[in-house]
């Protein structure tokens, strides 16, 4: 491969070039980026780049600029209509509509992009392919922005990630003196980069300092802890509120149900659910195999570090991306890093 081919993967752009590019994208497609919504940082659609919450500009710290929800909701929304149902007398008519618009997500965190990759294993790589997720995924380009620091609750480096990891993005941006280094990671990403307008660079992006790393129990270590009394102890605090699952980039459990739109017209929806919920596993007739809170909380940890990779052929990989959101959102102080460190302690 010649030097020039490699060079064409990286460009040096200024803040104003970046903004002009994003404005152009927002004109032609749906642009989603971190934005303040009623004081909460969320990934939401923006009309112009000046609505975006930039690190160090609208937000004073890495903590404040971190979206409360992961990008999961862009591909797998909290509530999704699967089809509508029209009932006229004995007649039934079902109608489907699929999401088919081009979307670009800007400011994706490496932990969140990892989360999408992990969800791919289930929705795309395991048959049958999910019609809704697949369309959104196909029509969406991920533009990552390397985190410049790790927040107190971040632990991506302990679960195989890094604050500047580009592997799961289409395009990756790194802050540098005088602007950003843009890197095309996939063909899809390369397609979005304006040819000729940007200055090609050979500068290697500076690595973000990794300030925190601890040992996470390996997958094969998990089965022996299944019946530990520890799960009773740690779950005493759990309120079964399910918030941890909703903010998690990889929790994907859902429920399907019918809702009435107006008499004679209904929709079948799927909506997020969580194994922490009390009735989650209850069957008709009342049998409840996970009646204890400890069993439910344990299931969440085992899903992350054992079950999910078993079920979807991910080998030794964990389904936790180290984003730290579950730690921040838990009203009772259940801390996943504390659990992981406790399991590593000799009994």
């Amino acid at each position, binding site marked *: 491969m010649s030097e020039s081919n490699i060079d064409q993967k990286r460009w040096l752009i200024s803040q104003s070039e970046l903004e002009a590019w994003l404005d152009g994208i927002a004109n032609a497609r749906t642009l989603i980026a971190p934005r303040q919504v009623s004081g909460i940082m969320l990934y939401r659609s923006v009309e112009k780049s000046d609505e975006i919450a930039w690190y160090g500009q609208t937000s004073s710290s890495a903590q404040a600029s971190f979206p409360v929800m992961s990008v999961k909701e862009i591909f797998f929304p909290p509530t999704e209509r699967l*089809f509508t149902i029209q009932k006229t007398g004995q007649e039934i008519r079902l109608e489907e509509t699929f999401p088919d618009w081009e979307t670009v997500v800007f400011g994706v965190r490496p932990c969140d992009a990892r989360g999408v990759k992990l969800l791919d294993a289930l929705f795309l790589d395991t048959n049958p392919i999910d*019609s809704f997720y697949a369309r959104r995924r196909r029509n969406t380009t991920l533009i990552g922005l390397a985190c410049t620091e790790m927040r107190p609750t971040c632990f991506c480096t302990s679960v195989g990630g890094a604050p500047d990891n580009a592997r799961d993005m289409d395009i990756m941006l790194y802050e540098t003196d005088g602007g950003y280094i843009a890197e095309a990671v996939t063909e899809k990403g390369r397609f979005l980069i304006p040819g000729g307008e940007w200055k090609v660079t050979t500068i290697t992006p500076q690595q973000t300092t990794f300030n925190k790393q601890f040992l996470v129990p390996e997958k094969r270590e998990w089965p022996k802890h299944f019946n530990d009394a520890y799960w009773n102890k740690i779950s005493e605090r759990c309120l079964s509120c399910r918030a941890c699952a909703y903010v998690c980039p990889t929790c994907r459990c859902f429920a399907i*149900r019918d809702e009435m739109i107006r008499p004679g017209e209904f929709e079948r929806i799927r909506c997020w659910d969580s194994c922490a919920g009390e009735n989650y596993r209850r069957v008709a007739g009342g049998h409840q*195999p996970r009646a204890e809170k400890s069993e439910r909380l344990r299931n969440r940890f085992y*899903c992350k570090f054992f*079950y999910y990779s078993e*079920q979807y052929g991910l080998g030794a990989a964990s389904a936790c991306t180290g984003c730290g959101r579950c730690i921040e959102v838990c009203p009772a102080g259940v801390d996943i890093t504390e659990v992981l460190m406790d399991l590593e302690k000799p009994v």
Partner: protein
Amino acid sequence: MNKNPMLPYLGNLVEVRDLAADIKLFRVELLNGGGEAFQTFQPGQFAFVSAFGLGEAPFGIANASGRGPAIDFAVARLGSVTTGLHELGKGDIVGVRGPLGNWFPMKKFKGKNLIVLGGGIGGAPLRPVIQHVLDHRFDYGHLTILWAARHPSLLVFTDEYDEWRAAPDTDLHLTVDTPDKKWDHNVGLITQLLEKVSPSPENIVTITCGPPIMIHFVTKLLQEKMGFAPKNNYVTLEARMHCGMGKCGRCNLGEKLICVDGPVFNMEEVGGLLETFL
């Protein structure tokens, strides 16, 4: 399966009849291409049935695919979807999504004696096994059916007992926990009946479906007292699945998903899992 796997086929209810107290049999003929999808279903597979406007729920398919173009479901009235289904009658439209899950390895069972143990509506997913054996009677050895319910009014497929009894090399044993005045069969738990029948563990497989507690004690008895190898004890497990295709995550039993890795398991597989089904 439909292009969108969440979209059910429409089905015409050609027959609805009482099967037991608060349990009805729904016979569905599929429309819009569903018949093709259901041409090859196997004993032990399940499908989702929709009461449109109320939702859908999973049910074991209650007939063998060789028996006509319709599909049978036995539905106990327990929640909102099943109550909605119970309000439907002949000519109404339901949704059917499937066939889903694995099945009893009927080919592997050829030449073996079979014991089928059904508890209450748990008998429904076992009816296709019985029908399959009766329809291929000389491929299998002795068939023993142990059929149980809490009360005589809760026994399912009572009008088919004569057919089962009349089949060559086939026995039917009935038991209830609480008899009524007319009852002249066994009284007691299915485990007591099993001890009484006392089958030899040679060249035999057992197939059990019922409440989890029944599956637990039946398989325990077979293994601990009667000398059956766990791998010869087949069970079909239930869970409140929502997708049935390994996506929604609701039916995991430890590292397995009941909807795609099951619902049929042998007890050797079940015993190797982190979580118990009880």
